[in-house]
């Protein structure tokens, strides 16, 4: 009976004309931006608080942003790490936190039933606003991070990624890995984390995303509650501009693996880049489409040289990496690299065909609804739109932006932005 009622609600929804998500946006009294989308149908909500406090804010302390984030739920207010975990899990709430180059975030997914929601949110608020950074918790989490950094050295793919970012970014804060390096992390004190937290985890540097089955009024209360105990503080200075490498480079790192990992690229595109859509659609044809792309075709389908052969633009606040990658048996590394570069150069010279461009647009626009068909995916999109202050109709205009891209624009954008004479190449594997 109960179920029939819910079925009825769903039926009504399905008959309404469907459009991209309606994002509502406002500011809290302390000036934090809030982005809210109501999604009905499931009694759950995702709340995510995002700070401009990613690894690009590490300065010389590579890894301090990540370790700060990892410590938050290890003790806060009067609560121990055990208390915090028990409080979340006793109501079935999922807490997570993390960093990338630009952002640090804390998130919670919880049921909307009031008693459960209230307990989850109160715990979340404590973790966010009163982390203790106790010495014992700090020592333990630091040791775990150091073990993680050692573990990373077992993986040729990870080592390749580290060397690649160093080659692309030199002295820029995007050059070092988010989790840091042994040399810096080993020297941290709990006070370093506390200072980082005090500087960056402030209302002026925060935004909140709320996606789920809560009303606007509940969303406003939630945002206010979560951020109310944070000092206002101030926004940090802009992340410095990226300087392009001035020459190509190629480095090999010897590693006792059966495959060699090959990475080739340059700093690529950024979130508000006027070339973004041309580069995005172009890359879809070059190597971004998961099972249909030139790299996939040339490296895997025609020659069986690799399991994966892809290219990607990872847009950040500044130019994030453009990366072409494959992994192949050690003794055919040069052959695979030749195929990759030849494919890239040909694309750069001639651009895509009409047919390829049409197919790419059909793929991107035809699958548009699948980009945010779950609350999880929608939360990611809204967080991106909010953090990078994209227009609120970003999703509504996405398809027309893709449709508007021409072959000439793709050729022009790639020629200006991905200069073959500057490509950085890293190989990790067992050489001759």
């Amino acid at each position: 009976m109960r179920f029939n009622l819910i079925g009825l609600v769903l039926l009504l929804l399905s008959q309404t004309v469907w459009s991209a998500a309606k994002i509502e946006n406002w500011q809290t009294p302390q000036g934090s931006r809030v982005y809210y989308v109501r999604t009905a149908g499931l009694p759950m909500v995702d709340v995510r608080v995002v700070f401009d406090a990613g690894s690009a804010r590490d300065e010389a302390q590579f890894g301090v942003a990540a370790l700060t984030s990892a410590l938050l739920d290890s003790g806060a207010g009067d609560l121990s790490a055990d208390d915090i975990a028990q409080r979340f899990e006793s109501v079935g709430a999922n807490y997570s936190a993390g960093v990338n180059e630009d952002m640090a975030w804390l998130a919670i997914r919880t049921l909307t039933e009031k008693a459960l929601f209230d307990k989850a949110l109160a715990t979340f608020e404590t973790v966010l606003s009163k982390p203790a950074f106790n010495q014992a918790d700090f020592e333990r989490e630091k040791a775990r991070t150091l073990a993680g950094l050692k573990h990373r050295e077992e993986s040729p793919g990870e080592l390749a990624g580290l060397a690649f970012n160093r080659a692309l970014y030199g002295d820029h804060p995007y050059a070092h890995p988010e989790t840091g390096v042994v040399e810096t992390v080993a020297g941290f004190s709990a006070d370093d984390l506390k200072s980082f937290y005090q500087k960056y985890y402030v209302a002026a540097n925060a935004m909140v995303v709320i996606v789920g089955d809560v009303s606007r009024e509940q969303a406003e209360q939630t945002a206010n509650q979560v951020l109310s105990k944070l000092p206002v503080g101030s926004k940090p200075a802009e992340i410095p501009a990226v300087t392009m490498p001035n020459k190509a480079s190629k480095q090999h790192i010897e590693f006792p693996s059966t495959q060699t990992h090959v990475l080739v690229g340059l700093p690529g595109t950024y979130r508000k880049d006027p070339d973004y859509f041309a580069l995005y659609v172009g890359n879809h044809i070059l190597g971004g489409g998961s099972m249909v792309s030139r790299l996939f075709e040339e490296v895997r389908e025609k020659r069986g040289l690799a399991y994966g052969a892809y290219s990607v633009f990872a847009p950040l606040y500044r130019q994030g990496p453009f990366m072409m990658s494959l992994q192949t048996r050690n003794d055919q590394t040069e052959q695979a690299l030749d195929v990759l570069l030849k494919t890239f150069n040909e694309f750069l010279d001639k651009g895509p065909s009409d047919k390829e461009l049409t197919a790419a647009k059909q793929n991107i626009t035809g699958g548009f609804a699948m980009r945010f068909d779950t609350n999880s995916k929608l939360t990611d999109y809204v967080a991106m739109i909010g953090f990078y202050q994209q227009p609120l109709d970003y999703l509504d205009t996405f398809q027309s932006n893709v449709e508007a891209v021409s072959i000439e624009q793709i050729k022009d954008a790639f020629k200006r932005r991905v200069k073959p004479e500057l490509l950085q190449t890293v190989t990790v594997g067992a050489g001759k």
Partner: protein
Amino acid sequence: MNYRLAALALLCPAVAANAEAGKVHEHVFSNGLKLLVKEDHRSPVVVSQVWYKVGSSYEPGGITGISHMLEHMMFKGTAKYPAGEFSRIIAENGGNENAFTGQDYTAYFQTLEKSRLEISFKLESDRMRNLDLKAEELKKELEVVTEERRMRTDDQPRSKVHEQFMATAFTNSPYQNPVIGWPSDIANYKVEDLQAWYQQWYAPNNATLVVVGDVDAQQVEKLAEQYFAPLQPSVLKPVKPQDESEQRGVRRITVKAPAKLPYLMMGYKVPVLKTAKPEWEAYALEVLAGVLDGGDSARLSSRLVRGKQIAVSAGAGYDFTSRLPEIFLLEATPAEGKTVFDLEYALLDEVYQLKNQLIDKDELQRIKAQVLASAVYQKDSNFYQAMQLGTLETVGIGWQKADEYVDKINQVTAEQVREVARKYLIEDTLTVAYLDPQPITQAAKPAKAIGGHHAF
């Protein structure tokens, strides 16, 4: 206090109703194909999955991994749609597609905007019976699979440990073989082997078609009728049971690999939902896995990672929807200054406590609260819902069990958890594997640098 909250959650109509798996429309066509449709109208999309009852646990020696190899070859074309066409057509319709192979299944999927479901049916029904296997395509794709194995297993120390662990723990159960296959078997597949495997298993009466999304079940059935009902069924030979012979005594192995950290894997032989008698034992083992590793408040995190600080990470795993009896797995990485033997001792101590003390009522409540909440969260994803139905159906448990899950977990008592610990977590069926790290001599060679570095 905690307990009252859980009870509240269970009583709350919205939560309880949403924790139910929801209505599934089932239809079996006369050729034996089973169709399962679940309407979910939250987004204008649909996922379509074709599940075949075949996977690595069906494979005899000499051709291990052939189900996975065939999965790759399924993208290599039919008379109607030559190599590459399948993926091209899905792509130009905005679809995502892929496939996956497990011990007990091989499955193919497309996610599409809801009006395009027909494209998926058209293509999948064609390759269910009309695959055109070519020797030259196999030659290339065999290299791809070999690269996949290098990437997934050969260059991953912990994957290697897992592979050797399974090969040691199982004496004759087909779960002793890796899903991707042993290297020598992969190197020696012939196109006739693939052809025979395809003939044997790819038929409507060995498949389940699962559709979840913004669709009308009756219309989906009509569409499936049009494309799949004309396909001829095959005569299926029953699979030999290959019951695992009894293990009487602990087994220990060491795996050496270039690595930086030691690692420990331990496991006990346990029944699964399909084989457990009585059935509640499988649910009790699920709860047991939750007691050890159901979140950050669970015992392995709170006691070994935080309390004793003996591990930097520790986990437990139990795949309760497998077709054949499984391993209850424990794995951990020692903290600096601790050894795998210290960890083994600590894990055995946890097992000892589970056998000798009843779990706390708050612990049990937390697991139940998490299971209930997860049942709601999982419905955020059509793909997950389809996976759940497809798995249950394909291993022979029946999709209806999805509806019972939350209830059955709720019925598990602390006494039952202790009972399964006493019955199954015993030394006679234990296998232990240690990763013994070998040095990685690593030297950067920027010798080939073409030019300088950055402009400053």
